[in-house]
Structures are given as C-alpha cells and as structure tokens.
C-alpha cells in the first residue's frame, strides 16, 4: 500500500513550520488531497475505474462522487473504531467497512440514478478494490480522529474526482466535441440543458473515447502536474537557503 508515499514532505514541512493548529491540519489535508499527494496523480491508485469510466464528464463525476462518498464513510468509520481493532485484523475490518459502503452506494445508485448505474456497470462494485480507499484508511484514518479523517476522505475523494472529471472532460471534448453529454443520467432530466456541444464532429477521435486515450490523457495530466511542480520548485529554490548544523561525532 501507499504508506510510504503518503504524508510526504509537504506534511512535514507544514507541521514543522507552524503550530499544530487544527486549521493548519485542514490546510495540509486539502493540499495533500488535491495536489501534492493526489490519489490519482501521485499515488496512482484506483487507475482501473479512473481509466475505464472517464469517457465522459458525467460518468467521471458519477464515479468520482461515489468514490468520495465511500472514502468519507470508510474513513470516518475506521477512525471511530480504530481503538478497538487489533492491528492484525485491521485489514479485514477495513475491507469489510469499505465493502459495506460500496454495496450501500451501489444499491442507492441502482435505485436513484439507474441510467448512470447502467453506464458505470462493473466499476461501482470495483470501488472496493480502489487502493486509494484502503490506503487512506491505513495511512490516515487509523491514526487520526474522525473529524480529520472525514476531511481527509473528502479531500482525497475530491482530488480523485477532480482528476477523473478533468480526464473525462479531455476525452469527451477531444473524442466527441461535447461536455456533460448524458448529464441527465446523473442529475435528473433538467440536466439535459447542461450538455454543451463545443463543435460538431463528423468523425469522433475514437482514440480519445477508447481506453488507450485514457492512458494517454492520464499521462499528459501527470506530466502537466510534474511540470507545474518543477516550475514552482525552481521558483522556490532561490529563497530556501538553510544550513543544517553539523553533528559532531566526537568531542572536540
């Protein structure tokens, strides 16, 4: 799992620089979830649904929200029970919690957003195997209180959803020249007005619509993030001159 990747330097930095106020913790969680430790872009978790259902914004949004709900639910539950669960059975317990939430979400989607449920197909039950969820349960929720865990779940879920939607938008625009095609499946009939036809295509660029397009698009999004990080780092490099005190091995 992703323990080693999770909570990287940004978390350290933030907590080192400031007092451990709750506000700072929330800020750190936000930053981690949306950017510096984004489950899709940095941890590269949950790629299977990410790549499979990001054909349109609607599908992406649907799966993203489902994942987010599961994440919040599982994080809160895991955080609440963390003190009662011995470490050797924590993974089965986490999995059970997650599976329960996924099943609940699946049932609700089946009942209330049937069209979307049909469109997303197998990928809703597959949320169970989305490593991002158990990763957060293990790396964060099992060590923090439920409020913070809920925020963490929300932010991670949001980060995941945003990437999913971005990828969905890219593929939808390039592939068929529209946005929010089929939004009514998710949001009800009024949402047909959301559909934007950017340009009419005689021949959809099938590459974007098909799974290879998802891989290529994902590659570009990750590259873009790395590029931005690189630029920011370059900008910051000049003003971070610190000198670390050298430890003396011997008495002098």
């Amino acid at each position: 799992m992703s323990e080693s990747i999770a909570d990287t330097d940004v978390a350290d930095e933030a907590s080192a620089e400031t007092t451990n106020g709750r506000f700072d913790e929330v800020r750190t969680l936000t930053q981690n979830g949306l950017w510096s430790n984004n489950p899709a872009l940095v941890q590269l978790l949950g790629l299977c649904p990410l790549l499979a259902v990001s054909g349109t914004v609607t599908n992406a949004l649907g799966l993203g929200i489902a994942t987010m709900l599961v994440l919040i639910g599982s994080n809160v539950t895991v955080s609440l029970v963390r003190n009662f669960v011995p470490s050797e059975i924590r993974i089965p317990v986490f999995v059970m919690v997650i599976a329960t939430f996924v099943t609940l979400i699946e049932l609700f989607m089946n009942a209330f957003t049937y069209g979307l449920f049909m469109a997303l197909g197998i990928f809703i039950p597959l949320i169970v195997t989305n490593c991002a969820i158990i990763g957060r349960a293990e790396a964060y929720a099992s060590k923090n209180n439920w409020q913070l865990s809920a925020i963490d779940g929300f932010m991670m879920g949001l980060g995941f959803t945003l990437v999913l939607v971005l990828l969905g938008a890219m593929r939808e625009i390039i592939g068929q020249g529209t946005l929010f095609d089929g939004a009514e499946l998710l949001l009800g009939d009024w949402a047909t007005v959301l559909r934007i036809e950017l340009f009419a295509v005689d021949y959809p660029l099938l590459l974007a619509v098909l799974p290879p397009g998802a891989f290529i698009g994902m590659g570009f999004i990750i590259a873009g993030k790395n590029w931005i990080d690189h630029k920011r780092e370059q900008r910051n490099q000049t003003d971070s001159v610190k000198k670390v005190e050298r430890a003396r091995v011997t008495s002098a």
Partner: protein
Amino acid sequence: MSMVAGIIALAVLALAFGLLLGFAAVRFRVEKDPIVEQIDSLLPQTQCGQCGYPGCRPYAEAIANGDDINKCPPGGQSTIEQLADLMGREAKPLDDAHGVEDVKKVAYIREDECIGCTKCIQACPVDAILGATKQMHTVIADECTGCDLCVEPCPVDCIDMIELQQGPERWKWDLEQIPVTQLATEVKS
C-alpha cells in the same frame, strides 16, 4: 430467511478468519528489521556528522525511520541512488544544506606547526591520527576518511585537507582533465 442465513454465514466466516489471524499474529511474529544494517553498509562510514547525526549508524537508523536519504555529502549522488534503490524511494539530489559533494581528501598535518595538543586526535572518529601530548601528530593517510572533523579543533590551524593523490592505476579516464599544456614545447620541428 435468506437474510438471516447471509448474516450468520458472514459472521461465522469472520469469526473463523479472526481466529486464524489471531493465531498467525502470534505464530509468525517477525522479530527485528535488519534494514538499518543494510543502510549502514551503504553509507561511506566517514563518520563526519554532516548529516546532522553523530555518525553513520545513527543516520542509518534515522533513514530507516523515514528521514531523507539525501543528507550524506561524502557518499554523494551514488550513495543516494543506492539508498533510493534499497528504500524504494525516489532519488533526490543531495541536500546542499548538509554540504556539497567533494573530491576525496585526506587530512595532512603540517608537522612543523603542530604543537602537540592532541585535540585532533580526540576529534578523529576513526583514530587515524598518531601522536601524544606535546609530540608532533601525523595522519595515517590510509585510514583517514576525509571527514575533516580534525580541522576545526586545531588551535594552530595546521591541518589541511588535501586531495587524495591518484596514480595511473586509479585514474578514472577523465580525458578532459589531462593537463595537456604541460611540456608541450618539447617538440621542436
């Protein structure tokens, strides 16, 4: 009816697996993580303390506990890469807050100026300086790790860090660095 059956089945399964896990947890407990040893063996053992820890082993322990791997200037980039390999982390450039990678050096005591204060002897982490009180000290070049910890304590500043002399045998084929101007006028046509 099916509901009850489902609930019972799951509960029984969970119970069984819980027992199994409890058993496994006791039976297959892993004693100690030897990762510190492996890290330590990658560090250059200069014991220079530039990483901020008193010696290589403490730094190895710190790395095992999640400290950055880019704090060892004597090891340089190659050590960072090996550590990155071992730890499954990403290799970063050397953190120059801890110093910069340098050529290999050894300490050299200008013996005329040595007053025999033994301060450097106490500072040397590997006992590579010979001498006694009020006697001239000298560095055993082969044992010196080049940590330069002896330089600062010297009250008379008689210790130099000089570049390690290299012979043709240890030459690293850096063709660009050959001093070509030397003796170039010898050929007369």
